[in-house]
Every structure is written in structure tokens, then in C-alpha cells.
């Protein structure tokens, strides 16, 4: 019984310590975070092949045009 409460105390101590640490975090406004996320996505959009599409000439996965060999 005493073993259980000893480990229970230690576990709770760790939880409290972790919560104290997380409570001290500095947080920015979601509106600011959203602006930064938007900016990043939009700035990198042109370079995103899955978003922009891949021209077949540049697509390593496109089956090559067949060449006839006579």
C-alpha cells in the first residue's frame, strides 16, 4: 500500500512540475499565427508541385512517350 502511494506522489510531482513549466509559456495571438501560416503557404505555393500540377515534360513519374524503333 505504501509503495503505491509513494509512486503516486512521485508521478503527481512530475505532473505538477510539467504543468508549471507549460503554464509559463509565452503565447502569441492566433490571429498573428494565422497570418504567418498563410504567408508561408502562399509564398511557397508556386514551388509546390502537387498544388500547381507537374508538366509532363518535368514529371519523373509520367510514362515516357513511346518511341518506335524500326
Amino acid at each position, binding site marked *: 500500500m505504501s509503495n503505491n502511494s509513494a509512486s503516486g506522489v512521485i508521478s503527481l510531482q512530475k505532473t505538477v512540475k510539467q504543468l508549471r513549466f507549460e503554464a509559463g509559456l509565452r503565447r502569441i495571438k492566433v490571429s498573428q499565427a494565422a497570418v504567418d501560416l498563410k504567408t508561408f503557404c502562399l509564398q511557397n505555393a508556386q514551388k*509546390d508541385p502537387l498544388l500547381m500540377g507537374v508538366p509532363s515534360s518535368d514529371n519523373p513519374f509520367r510514362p515516357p512517350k513511346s518511341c518506335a524503333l524500326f
Partner: protein
Amino acid sequence: MGEMEQMKKEAEGLKTQIEAARKAVNDTDMASAAAGVAPAPRVQLKTRRTLKGHLAKIYAMHWCTDNRLMVSASQDGKLLIWDSHSGNKVNAVPLKSSWVMTCAYAPSGNLVASGGLDNMCTVYNLKTPVIKTVKELDAHAGYLSCCRFLSDNEILTASGDTTCALWDLETGKQTTVFLSHVGDCMCLALSPDNNSFISGACDSLAKLWDIRDGQCKQTFLGHTSDINAISFLPSGNAVVTGSDDCTCKMYDLRADQEVICYQDAALNSGVTSLALSMSGRLVFAGYDDFNCNIWDSLKGEKVGVLSGHDNRVSCTGVPADGMCVCTGSWDSFLKIWN
């Protein structure tokens, strides 16, 4: 017993404090903030390759940094290394234990790793004349759900024993153990700068960790079931999670909270895997219902679907150059789409 009661009270008080602090900065949500952004184009991707070779369910896949090779793991007891351009198998690694749940490619391309119900992470050298087992990392008390190389010398693991660990591949020992989750750890992802990583677990929490000092820096709440998949946005400021609660969520690290949820009333299958496009605008999420849905990460709208597998999509991955997306399934096939 008085001490326990006091600490429980303090814990509750701190949780309330944290919730209030998050609310205080919650002046909008991502979807509202992105109202003025042009919608992402309707994304219609075609299957460019179907990789056939595994004889049983595929559980994991991971791209090599060369954007061409990839490794896949199946419960047929093999890792297969594929050349995605040709569709050919380059290597086959027979596993001691067929109950594999994860695989990873080292950034150098020299090593691959796998693990699962054997509770071990086994590292293989692909560059020796015959593929050799380099190390068997054996210290977890539960299954290995995920692993990722930092380099040829260090690897991170996530385990069903509720811990994550950083290992030194020379000594084969754990350098750091990351303790805080109270449920099986199911997934992990490295930050773009390699200084931190994020983990998702069956306690429905995602946690951000400092790799070097082992400290849990942040905890993200919101999911109501196991988190099976997790990924950083390429900017490093946000993470996306996928859960058995059928939703994906984006959490911003600096606002320390959920900023958008990707869900649909018609979707009632759990999310098994996810990957982001290069700009972070598209989220590819694999579901138990055999599909991979494509979400606009800013607006929260579904913009496409990848249908073609005949069983659960268990893994997804986008290579570093963002040229395609790969899906792996319990139907034993991998498909490459763009």
C-alpha cells in the same frame, strides 16, 4: 495523503490557468483568418505507379532524401526498397520478426530501420555488399510504433510503452528517454531544424519535445481518441495530427493551441496516416475507409480524394521535393500519385 490532495489541487489549478491563457490569445481561428485566401485548386491526382511486391498488409513507408528511393514495410516479413521512378524493387530485407509496424530511411541513404511487436528497432546497412544488421536497439518495454533517423548515428523511436527515446547507434544505447505520455506513443515527427520533435499517443495528446534536454515543452489537447499520425508544417511553426476520432487538426506551436480542425460529418473512419505538400497547403490524410482525403490546410475544406486502394490506407508520404504523394495500404500495394 494531505500532500496528494494539495498537489491534485495545484494540478487542476494549473490546467485551468493554461486553458485561460490559451483562450486569452484565441482571437480568431485559421479558417476565418483565411477567408480572403483564394481556394486551393481542385486537386485531381492520377496514379502514376502501382508498386506490387508485398504479399501482406503494408504498415509503413518512408521516402529517401534523394526523392527517388523509398522503403516499405509489410507483415509479410520484408522491407522492400523501391526505385519509385522505374517502379523496380532495388532491395529486399528479410525481417527476423514479421510483426513490423514502422520503417525509416536515414537521410544519408545508407541505413534503414524497422520495428514492431518485437519491441526492438533494428538498423540495417544497405551499402555493404550484402545487407547487414548494424544494431538491434532493445530497451523498449512495448511495441515500436515509429522511428526516424536524425543521422547515421542517432535515431528517435516511439513505443507502446508510452515513451519515446533517442538512441546512439554506435553504442546501441538510449541517450535520452522522453517521459510524459500516459498512453501508447503511436507516431513522431522531426522538426525541420532537427532540434525538436513532436509525438502523438493513445492518450489523445500531442507533445513537443526538446531533443537534447529531453524536456516536454508543450502539450496539445483537443483530440478525443488515439493520435495515429503527426507531421510538422514545413515552416516549423505548426503541426498536423490525424486521429481515430476521424479528424485531423492543426496546432500552432507559438499560439500553443488548435487553430483548425479537418472534419466532415460524412467521415466516420479513423485517420491512419498523413503527409503535407511542400508548401504545407495540402494535407493528404489516409483513412480506414480505404481513401486518402486531401484537405486545404488553411481553409479546412476537402479539395480532393485519392481512391484506388482496396483496403485501409495505412501510410502516406511526400518526398522532400514535393513531386508526388505515395500511399501504402493493407491491400499490399503502394501507389504513387501526382
